[in-house]
């Protein structure tokens, strides 16, 4: 009985203790349920988002760049389908065998093979390795033929930038290539849209209008597992192509420029004298921008970089030259405007001028005799311009030159590498060289030598502004207005000048007329420096001014020797320049031509103008009729 009693007492203890535990259990269970409640119901949204973030990954594809077209809508920077070859390591049975096969099929270098092997070890097995970015069609066919033997290899079609006119537009457009780290960080849009394999503008307009051209990424949404392997595609969101850019340039003129400057260093620019549309700007020699798309080879790069004609320099806006005699129209205009001379003012040219014991030579040793303004311009008499420059003084000349755009950037906003050149005056010399101006310097400034530095485009603009009657225009390369007929263009320019007084560059329109006539005679009258290059047909007839700028001082000995061009070392030869506008009656276009070390302007540069004007004026009608104007906002 005692045992049983004890037993009962014991089990009472057990039951009581169990009851306490039971209570604790209920509390703990309630705690767990409330935790479940808070996770699954209160914070459900948060965790659902996190779970989607886990499972959904986006793959951005490189955006397709917008096209750049010329004035007539021809694509000058477009996109091309290219065939790439990818390897997907996880599908490859025998990697070494595959590499050997590909090596023989595609002629891959050992370095490339090594690179692929490195990539294979670095990437996840389902990430594709790009073997070749740009297969030729025959390579593509070959690979497709042997595809049964190349397990794990995938030919892929993608889109790549393409410059159909190769080197014709290089300096204007620039090129695209893979960005480096800084370039990605620098540009927010690029940073946002960057994906490996994407190319960005490295130079020229491609760089300047990167954000306009870039386009938006296509996005693939995949469900991925914890290791990042794609399980299935959930969505494909197609990106849009970048915006189009239409240039004022004319491919035909551009091509002719390239042809004329073949194997020469120099530049050709052509401009609409009323609207400021740049019809051509070509810098020679050029190089093929397509070379940079898939990474230029060291050898090709060295070839471009070490070319003595300096293809990397955009000579049209960054090349600085002494204008030589092409400055004379401005000197003459300045003298007329400042009433230093009248058209009948005559100077006797004896072939040289003495000033403070220094001799200033005219290009014609025997001298021109008595010359008027018109004849001085026609025959490019240096003595005459020494004299009027002396009378005028450099400071007044400087004011006129500045008005016509010398010493200032022409395009400014489009190219980072544009140079502003220099047109000196007395205070400039004082401030920059610390010495006073010497009268002799005025004389040589009057014939476009000395400190004066101009870009080819500045000379073109200067000529255009003389040709249009002396109105300031704003040069541009992006189309922003509908095609204008001659009358419309002229009126629009004059209309603008009514509203802004500083757009009118002259005091007396007669003075402009005098300079124009002088330029006309230089090309179209016998003894004119570019008489040989004239066109008699009034439709194409143009007026111009030659220039021959010395790159070094001519020594007395050399002057006596009177060497032929071929006998002078290339580096020492004169630059040949020519500026012109046409047609003479109702002009529309102005141009400037510079051939580095090309000898004389009349022999080398002026004949090019003849060919150019024929083409430009023939295409004038087409240009006016061009109706596919689209409003493009940049």
């Amino acid at each position, binding site marked *: 009985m005692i045992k049983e009693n004890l*037993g009962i007492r014991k089990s009472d*203890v057990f039951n009581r203790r169990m009851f306490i535990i039971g209570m604790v259990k209920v509390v703990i*269970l309630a705690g*767990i349920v409330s935790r*479940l409640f808070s996770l699954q119901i209160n*914070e*459900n949204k948060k965790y659902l988002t*996190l779970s989607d973030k886990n499972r959904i990954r986006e793959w951005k594809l490189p955006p397709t760049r917008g096209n750049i077209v010329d004035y007539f809508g021809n694509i000058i920077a477009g996109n091309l389908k290219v065939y790439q070859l990818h390897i997907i390591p996880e599908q490859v049975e025998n990697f070494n065998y595959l590499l050997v096969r590909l090596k023989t099929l595609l002629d891959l270098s050992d370095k490339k093979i090594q690179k692929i092997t490195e990539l294979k070890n670095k990437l996840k097995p389902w990430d594709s390795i790009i073997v070749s970015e740009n297969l030729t069609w025959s390579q593509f066919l070959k690979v497709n033929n042997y595809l049964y033997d190349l397990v794990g290899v995938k030919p892929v079609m993608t889109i790549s930038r393409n410059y159909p006119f190769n080197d014709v537009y290089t300096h204007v457009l620039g090129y695209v290539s893979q960005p480096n780290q800084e370039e990605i960080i620098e540009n927010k849009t690029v940073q946002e849209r960057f994906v490996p394999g994407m190319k960005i503008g490295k130079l020229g307009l491609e760089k300047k209008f990167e954000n306009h051209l870039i386009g938006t990424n296509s996005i693939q949404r995949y469900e991925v597992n914890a290791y990042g392997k794609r399980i299935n595609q959930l969505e494909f969101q197609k990106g849009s192509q970048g915006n189009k850019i239409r240039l004022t340039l004319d491919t035909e003129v551009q091509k002719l420029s390239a042809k004329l400057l073949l194997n020469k260093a120099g530049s050709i620019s052509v401009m609409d004298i009323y609207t400021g549309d740049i019809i051509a700007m070509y810098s020679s020699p050029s190089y093929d921008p397509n070379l940079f798309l898939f990474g230029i080879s060291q050898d090709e790069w060295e070839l471009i970089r070490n070319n003595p004609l300096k293809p990397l320099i955009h000579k049209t806006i960054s090349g600085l030259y002494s204008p030589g005699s092409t400055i004379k129209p401005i000197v003459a205009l300045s003298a007329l405007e400042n009433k230093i001379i009248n058209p009948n003012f005559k100077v006797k040219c004896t072939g040289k001028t003495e000033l403070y014991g220094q001799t200033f030579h005219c290009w014609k040793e025997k001298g021109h005799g008595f010359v008027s303004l018109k004849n001085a311009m026609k025959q490019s008499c240096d003595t005459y311009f020494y004299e009027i420059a002396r009378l005028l003084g450099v400071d007044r000349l400087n004011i006129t030159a500045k008005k016509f755009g010398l010493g200032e950037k022409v395009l400014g906003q489009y190219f980072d590498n544009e140079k502003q050149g220099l047109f000196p005056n007395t205070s400039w010399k004082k401030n920059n060289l610390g010495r006073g101006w010497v009268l002799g310097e005025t004389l040589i400034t009057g014939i476009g030598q000395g400190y004066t530095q101009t870009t080819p485009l500045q000379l073109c603009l200067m000529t255009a502004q003389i040709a249009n009657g002396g109105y300031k225009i704003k040069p541009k390369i992006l189309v922003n207005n509908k095609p204008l007929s001659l009358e419309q263009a002229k009126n629009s320019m004059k209309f603008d000048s009514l509203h802004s007084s500083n757009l009118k560059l002259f005091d007396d329109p007669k003075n402009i007329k005098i300079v124009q006539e002088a330029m006309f005679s230089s090309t179209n009258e016998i003894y004119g420096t570019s008489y040989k290059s004239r066109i008699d047909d009034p439709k194409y007839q143009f007026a111009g001014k030659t220039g021959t700028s010395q790159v070094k001082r001519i020594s007395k000995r050399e002057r006596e020797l009177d060497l032929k061009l071929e006998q002078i070392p290339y580096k020492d030869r004169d630059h040949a320049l020519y500026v012109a506008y046409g047609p003479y009656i109702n002009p529309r276009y102005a141009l400037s031509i510079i051939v580095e070390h090309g000898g004389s302007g009349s022999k080398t540069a002026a004949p090019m103008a003849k060919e150019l004007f024929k083409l430009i004026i023939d295409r004038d009608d087409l240009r006016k009729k061009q109706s596919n104007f689209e409003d493009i906002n940049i």
Partner: protein
Amino acid sequence: MFYYKRLNSDLSFIQKIKEIDYVLLICIILLSLISLMVMYSTDGGDILFHTKNHFMKLTVLFPLMMVIAFFNIKHWHTFAYLLYFLIILLLVWVSFFGLKASGSQRWMNLYFFVLQPSELMKIAIILTLAKYYHRVKIENVNSLGSITLVLAIILLPVILVISQPDLGTSVLIALSGLIILWIAGIKIKYFVYSFIFGIISLPFIISFLKPYQKLRILTFLDPDRDPLGAGYQIIQSKIAIGSGGFNGKGFLKGTQSYLDFLPEKHTDFIFTLFSEEFGFIGSVGLLILYTIIIIRIIRIGALSRSNFSKLFCFGFAFSIFIYIVVNLSMVLGLLPIVGSPLPIISYGGSSLLTTMIGFGIVFSAKINHRQLIAG
């Protein structure tokens, strides 16, 4: 002797079948089915290795449970100490010759089955202490000698298991033992004192922890300190459970597990998968099922006339509860990560074996609840 004979009169087979707790049985079968379903889901909606293996284990262990159920509970009383020492021997053997995996040595390879003796100790400790308190006089329960002895009984396996190292199982063994002490009537003040002592010596204990264990505690306190490393499991687990929402993502539609974001989804983290796919409703349902099981076991304990059965049932019910709480708290981010499976549902033979043996003994206690055991 008289009572023994009379009360121990053997029941006929039919009577035994009638005495089975069918509610408990149905709950266990339901849990087994849920377990198979979840296993099927972890295999990505396919009958693969884990599903097959788990099914095979269930088909072997379920009959084992029933055999144990028909086996008189007095035999467990008789062999309790022997079992305890046998498993202690196995634990010692394992610490020398056991299989090693992921840095700990806790398994025996029996060729058809890989046994984890520490899991068996969870049951053995309850049996041993139940037998001890069945025998000891109530006056002696709080004597110094008695307390020292039972603490030694608990500490011996705990130390062996900790040294494997396996913190999770050793904590569960210790808790299972301590709860018997509690139920047996050890004075509450002792528990309070040792609790205070435990708190005070906590820094001291922490200094003894292995670096990875310290890391787990740090991770528990702030999972975001290393989201891809130590904190990864708990963060992903919370994401899975949280994203399940009220209704869940649907069977076989748990993206977290399907896409391999959940580590150890077959074993310790199986609840995350279940909760992701079946949501709050499913999770609470599962908890209710477990609660019914625990209540039924406690009820059987309360019905039992013998103190051994009573102590065993109470102890086992509490152990099941502790397993569930520790497991759920871990996956819900309420406790640091310690390896502890979810009874029946988690993949793992030893844990399932232990649980099934336990249920078998509980059924046996029910069938023989009128019987007294001499001791």
